């Protein structure tokens, strides 16, 4: 018995010894990617695992959301702003050993914008008229009109460069150019990446990275506490965060996301076709109460559909400050002094389910009765999003820089304003930085003053990490868990 105990102690000592020189990491994630092709689905989990790690685009997002060089070493924009000439890095190899050349870039862009393309963000490529492979390392992209956003668009996960020879199996065996190679996928359990020894850029510091899929919040807590996982990205049980903060083994990273969380109103359905009613709803809502009650204090109030960490952000929360008396007065002015009844359709995330209950109570206080229905995502997409059969709904819009959706009159909240549509069209072709900022600010102001939706808060990203793990992004400028700079401290 004593020998057995001694043996165990020795083994434990060995294990602890090994932990110091650790070169692998296990990241917990709530959702599993449905498949591994970032260019043919919207699922954020695909990008979280593969973006920058396995697949790279011409451009890429840095941790602060700025757009930096990816596979393109340099680029040149023609005078008229319609032609982009990209010079690719030399000596870049795909993980199967084949060379990256301009033909791969042409293939990737043409595939994404093709007639039968199933790219979830096909709009990113809508402006491309022609892609030409000038020589093996030079690609010329001609646009139908100048587009200020073009480089930004090329940084998205949906615009990564893939090779024609590996495209057939990409959904189960992704072959990219990144610092990590895809190794194994135990479906339902985990995905493993290993270091790409012949990476063209700065080599990864980790030898191996495993993404483990744990959907249940209590299981996430157990896995983190038992140190089965080294980090849990977007930790799903905010009620435990205080406990992790107090534990010296862990660090809680609280960062920003691109998720504007809004109470969307159906602008074409009575009574929300009346601006006074929309204004009343906006004033009836106490954002801080929702952040505290539904999000355990994590989240930044917003007054328009724009991310507070973006340099072009202006604080417009004053347009819709919490004022139930004013809300009642506005309802009376709209001829609805007695209030009205509407539907509130809630998709599954907790911001919607928990936030929805609080919003319903706040609206009831000014006389608006809501009939809450909890929907699964597929039902929500069918009824609210495609069918536009809703009065109110709560959604977080997680795509970066998506204020352009307000210029789409057929989008689910059905806001139709010719001025804003013109502004966004001009914005698309404007290349001057200062003017672009000014236009973005105008757009924020228009939709805020039109009370298109009630803007609630910017969704926070809370990631619990082992205190010794360095380099995990706190913010999520795109849905990515970029591990290229992650390492263990001594």
């Amino acid at each position, binding site marked *: 018995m004593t020998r057995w105990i001694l043996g165990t102690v020795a083994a434990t000592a060995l294990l602890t010894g090994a932990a110091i020189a650790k070169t692998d990491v296990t990241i917990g994630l709530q959702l*599993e990617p*449905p*498949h591994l092709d970032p260019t043919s*689905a*919207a*699922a954020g989990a695909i990008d979280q695992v593969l973006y920058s790690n396995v697949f790279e685009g011409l451009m890429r997002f840095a941790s602060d959301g700025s757009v930096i060089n990816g596979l393109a070493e340099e680029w040149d924009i023609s005078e008229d702003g319609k032609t982009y000439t990209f010079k690719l890095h030399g000596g870049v190899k795909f993980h199967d050993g084949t060379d990256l050349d301009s033909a791969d870039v042409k293939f990737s862009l043409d595939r994404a914008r093709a*007639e*039968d*393309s*199933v*790219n*979830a*963000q*096909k*709009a990113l490529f809508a402006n491309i008229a022609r892609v030409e492979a000038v020589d093996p390392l030079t690609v010329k992209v001609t646009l139908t009109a100048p587009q200020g956003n073009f480089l930004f668009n090329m940084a998205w996960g949906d615009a990564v460069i893939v090779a024609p020879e590996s495209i057939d199996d990409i*959904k*189960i065996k992704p072959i990219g150019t990144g610092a990590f190679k895809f190794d194994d996928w*135990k*479906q*339902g*359990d*985990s995905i493993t990446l290993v270091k790409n020894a012949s990476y063209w850029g700065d080599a990864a510091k980790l030898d191996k990275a495993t993404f*483990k*899929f*744990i*959907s*249940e919040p*209590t*299981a996430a807590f*157990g*896995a983190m*506490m*038992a140190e*089965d996982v080294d980090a849990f990205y977007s930790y799903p049980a905010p009620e435990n965060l205080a406990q992790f903060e107090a534990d010296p083994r862990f660090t809680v990273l609280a960062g920003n996301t691109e998720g504007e969380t809004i109470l969307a109103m159906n602008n074409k359905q009575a009574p929300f076709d009346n601006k006074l009613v929309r204004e009343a709803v906006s004033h009836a809502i106490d954002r801080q109460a929702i952040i505290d009650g539904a999000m355990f204090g994590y989240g930044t109030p917003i007054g328009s559909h724009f991310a507070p960490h973006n340099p072009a952000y202006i604080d417009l929360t004053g347009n819709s400050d919490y004022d139930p008396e004013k809300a009642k007065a506005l309802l009376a002015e709209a001829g609805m002094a007695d209030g009205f009844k509407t539907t509130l359709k809630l998709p*599954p995330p907790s911001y919607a389910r928990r936030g929805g209950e609080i919003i319903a109570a706040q609206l009831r206080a000014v006389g608006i009765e809501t009939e809450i229905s909890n929907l*699964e*995502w*597929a*039902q929500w*997409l*069918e*009824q609210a*999003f*495609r069918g536009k059969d809703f009065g109110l709904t709560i*959604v977080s*819009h997680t*795509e970066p820089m*998506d204020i352009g*959706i307000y210029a789409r009159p057929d989008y*689910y909240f059905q806001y139709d304003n010719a001025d804003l549509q013109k502004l966004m069209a001009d914005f698309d072709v404007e290349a001057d930085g200062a003017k672009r900022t000014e236009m973005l600010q105008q757009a924020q102001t228009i939709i805020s003053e039109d009370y298109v939706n009630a803007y609630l808060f910017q969704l926070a990203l809370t990631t619990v990490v082992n205190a010794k793990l360095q380099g995990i992004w706190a913010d999520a400028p795109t849905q990515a868990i970029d591990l290229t700079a992650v390492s263990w401290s001594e």
Partner: protein
Amino acid sequence: MLRYAIKRVGSLAISLIVASLVIFACIEVIPGDPASFMLGINAQPDTVAALREELGLNASLGARYLSWVTGMLSGDFGTSYTYRSPVAEIIGDRLWISLPLALIALGLTVLIAFPVGILAATKRGSWADMSVMGATQLGIAIPNFWFAMLMVLLFAINLRWFSAGGFPGWENPLAALKALTLPAIALALPQASILARVMRSALLDTLSEDYIRTCRAKGLTQRQALWRHALRNAMIPVLTIIGLQFSFLLAGAIIIENVFYLPGLGRLVFQAISQRDLIMVESVVFLLVFAVIMVNFAVDLAYAWVDPRLRGRA
């Protein structure tokens, strides 16, 4: 025995055909489109249409039912809408976790329930019987997911003997068995409590039968009478419950699989429903129905084996 078996096979086939129709009809009427789900809220309508075409969602209901059923007959369950790999392969992988888990849990159930039930019945009214009755009452009352969380707290977080969950794969059988230990205990405990109580009352019934008294009268000891005559006669209700429990353990481990994040069938079907991976849901549900029907078939045969009178009565 043969005629009995043939009749059972006939009713088995009819059950399966009806089940396939009901499953297909129920699942196809759920609102929600797999293509829109996959492409999210920024996708353009023409992209969704292109994906629907690619997935073959534009074919008629009848045609899809026929291709599903005929495919299954030849072992081809179709291709998952979301994972885009063959449904049969995915189910096969998951079955390698769910089936061993159910078997281990059932084994534990029987190992606990039989001795405990027999002990309680033979020592009726004693302190042993009382404590068995109390403990099993508790075992039935405690929700298994809560018990599972308590075990995680104790064995994974405090003592660090086990991982909090996950499955390392069968390449390392010992690690795999270890990963299934806590989930199997969590699943087995309430089932063992139920089975022990059934065992006890079934035994008590048979022990008070006239033939047991006759056995004793011709000179068998209490123990001999129990093992040779009472136990076998008490097996009919016990087998019925074991059959139901196995089906339940195979299909009903969804919650435990989530608590221990095991990639089993329960989690697969749960995910597939929310992603509207209809063909996957249909196939998994059909497989589970098939398993339940097969288990019942096996139980029917087992009845006939323990009780020869049933063979003639089919």
